[in-house]
């Protein structure tokens, strides 16, 4: 009834190919962005900004990056944590060695460092496929973990191996406080999500998907595997690297290599599997599922005023979380994004389903 495209005629190619072809979607997205930028800063609490929204946004960005590689290009990777670490440590070294550099420049350069490392570790993908590729990217993860824990130069010879981010200088202004940090992260994530969406809709995105669906066939129709696979690794690592820098600088503030260990890689992989492979929205949904749900489960009993011991709450959190993962994967193996798409199909026909 409300959500229907009847009467919306596309008379040009441009209007047919736009990002959100349905009017209601466009209105909703614009309204939501206005809400996220304009209203949330005034109504949300400190806790919400610092412990939920900021980590959610940053990990969404990392999930988008990984989704480009795994979901769109079909190259299984377990090195995401390592590439995040490259971004984080590159940003750290740039920021303390060149203190006058603008934060945005630092983050972009950090992303580029990660791009180079990612492309380098992507080379084996030309010969190796599937699970075997996962193992070589796992090697990247362990190598990078080792490098940041053992090579003193990366941590500026910090005795404990833990480094902390310098003040966040942005055009002469120091980014402080949860609201500023939230807005900063939100802006970066919005811009990069838009870039990712358009990349996947464009020629390069189609070549990734062709590689994913059948590499031999893709080669026959003229897509160069070297180019397609390495660009997927490069673009993916760029996103992941920036997410790593944000995670370290904005969310943690001080970190050790353990913050980017192999568990982080698994966590991100679970995000995109649960959220939906090959879907930008899925990255956000998956990140929300993995980041927000455990916290909500953990606080639920206390908020209701049920007196349970801390240990029991944590056990319940793990059990319910695990059960929900199983449930969602059985209900829809193609992820939360697919569930939403089905919901929208239904909504289109409502109230007259045939």
């Amino acid at each position, binding site marked *: 009834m409300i959500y229907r495209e009847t009467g919306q005629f596309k008379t040009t190619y441009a209007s047919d190919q736009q990002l959100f072809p349905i009017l209601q979607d466009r209105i909703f997205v614009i309204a939501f962005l206005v809400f996220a930028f304009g209203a949330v800063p005034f109504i949300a*609490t400190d806790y919400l900004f610092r412990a939920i929204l900021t980590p959610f946004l940053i990990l969404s960005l990392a999930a988008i990056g990984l989704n480009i590689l795994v979901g769109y290009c079909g190259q299984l990777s377990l090195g995401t944590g390592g590439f995040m670490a490259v971004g984080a440590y590159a940003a750290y070294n740039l920021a303390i060695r060149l203190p006058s550099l603008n934060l945005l420049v630092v983050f972009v350069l950090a992303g580029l460092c990660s791009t180079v490392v990612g492309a380098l570790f992507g080379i084996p993908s030309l010969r190796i496929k599937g699970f075997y590729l996962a193992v070589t990217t796992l090697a990247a993860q362990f190598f990078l973990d080792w490098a940041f824990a053992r090579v003193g130069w990366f941590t500026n010879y910090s005795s404990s191996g833990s480094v902390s981010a310098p003040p966040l200088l942005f055009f002469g202004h120091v980014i402080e406080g949860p609201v500023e940090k939230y807005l900063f992260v939100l802006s970066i994530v919005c811009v990069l999500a838009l870039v990712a969406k358009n990349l996947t809709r464009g020629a390069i995105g189609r070549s990734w998907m062709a590689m994913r669906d059948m590499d031999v066939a893709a080669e026959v129709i003229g897509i160069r595997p070297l180019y397609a696979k390495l660009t997927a690794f490069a673009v993916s690592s760029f996103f992941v690297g920036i997410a790593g820098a944000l995670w370290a600088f904005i969310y943690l503030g001080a970190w050790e290599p353990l913050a980017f260990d192999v568990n982080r890689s698994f966590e991100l992989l679970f995000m995109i599997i649960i959220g939906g492979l090959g879907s930008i929205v899925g990255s956000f949904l998956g990140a929300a599922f993995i980041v927000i749900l455990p916290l909500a489960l953990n606080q639920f009993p206390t908020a209701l005023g049920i007196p349970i011991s801390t240990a029991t709450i*944590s056990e319940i959190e793990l059990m319910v979380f695990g059960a929900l993962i199983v449930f969602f994967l059985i209900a829809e193996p193609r992820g939360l994004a697919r569930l939403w798409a089905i919901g929208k199909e239904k909504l289109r026909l409502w109230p007259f389903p045939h």
Partner: protein
Amino acid sequence: MKGKLRYKAAALALAAAGGLAWAADALAQSKEIFVPVLVYRTGPYAPNGVPWADGFVDYLKLVNARDGGVNGVKLSYEECETGYATDRGVECYERLKSKHPVAFSPLSTGITYALTDKVDADHIVLITAGYGRADSVDGAVFKWNFPLMGTYWDGADILVQHVKKKGSLKGKKIALVYHDSPYGKEPIPVLEELAKKEGFTLLKLPVTHPGVEQKATWLQIRQQRPDYVFLWGWGVMNSTAIKEAIAVGYPRLQMYGVWWAAAEPDVLPAEQAAKGYNGLALEHSAENNLPIHKDMMKFLYDKGKGTAADKKEVGQVLYNRGMLSAMLTVEAIRTAQAKYGKGVMTADQVRWGAEHLNIDKARIKALGVEGMLQPMHTSCEDHEGVRMARIHTWDGSEWSYTSGWYTADYKLLRPMIEQSAMKYAAEKGIKPRDCKKEM
């Protein structure tokens, strides 16, 4: 099309989380002093995290039940499970921050590093009794950090002092088996410095979290045959290390654990084999029959209000340490009340209290912990207060002291502390306070 879904989901999650946060806020009461308790009762570090948490919470309960609070002001508290993970610890901190806490004790050096940044902006005291960053002794730079009772740099120095007593260390080999985290890496600079000074070789053997897999490390030890092994582990890593030492036939008498690697959960799984294992005792060991423990029984456990599942836990090494952490927090509140009046204290006032702690012999006796705490005195330059430890040895069923008191060599450590603190200040753009003006 897809965009719409994304925002709907986010909005729902946002609304749910917002509701929770508000509900929690409403519960907070303003007539009490709120002490947050970061704990880990689950995961690979739980065997060690549980007694510490029980001791901490029990002391807060005891102050409320026995004394009716601190000078009449009740203490309220809330636990938050960190699982020893830094990101979860930061989340806990943010969650409990809204309740106007006075002091956090994160019981994790990694979390301490992450919070050090934040407490300065948020004005919350960070008490890290026996852990945390060693350079935060320098209160001029680290205004809000209090590594009371001892740091890892003291621990490293004291262990070297102890083994040196058995003969010159020149040409000897010492292996450091450490948890590969900020906690385990913390003593390395001091040990390297001492290696140069005393002429021993330092062998650094990291063990990855959580430390159940150490075969390779101990094979290296069998190969290299170091004269001493310092164990800087936590959680299951400690008991695994002791078992592996036995497996490769490394003599336990030459093995020394830091104070976090010398408690009941570390030696009990190894049973009789752990007999003769030595460790540092940070001020205290497993005293269990002092007035404070009797009070715990009388006011809490006899009434069924104790936190620990088994009352045998009262007086164990880590229980005592948790209790002392809470005690020092409460003493900081009390010191603040002496200056600012006997009401509810703000974190700023408690910070002043923690910086002006003066716990003398009489006060220690009044607290009922005689022999578990040495007189301590904090100031702006020295946020630590006291730097003494003994060695205690496991005889198969209990811990007993096997050495006299050692005091860490402050002349050696102070320049290192200052150098490290100044480096931090330069990186973060902090202007150190002038301690002469702070009274």
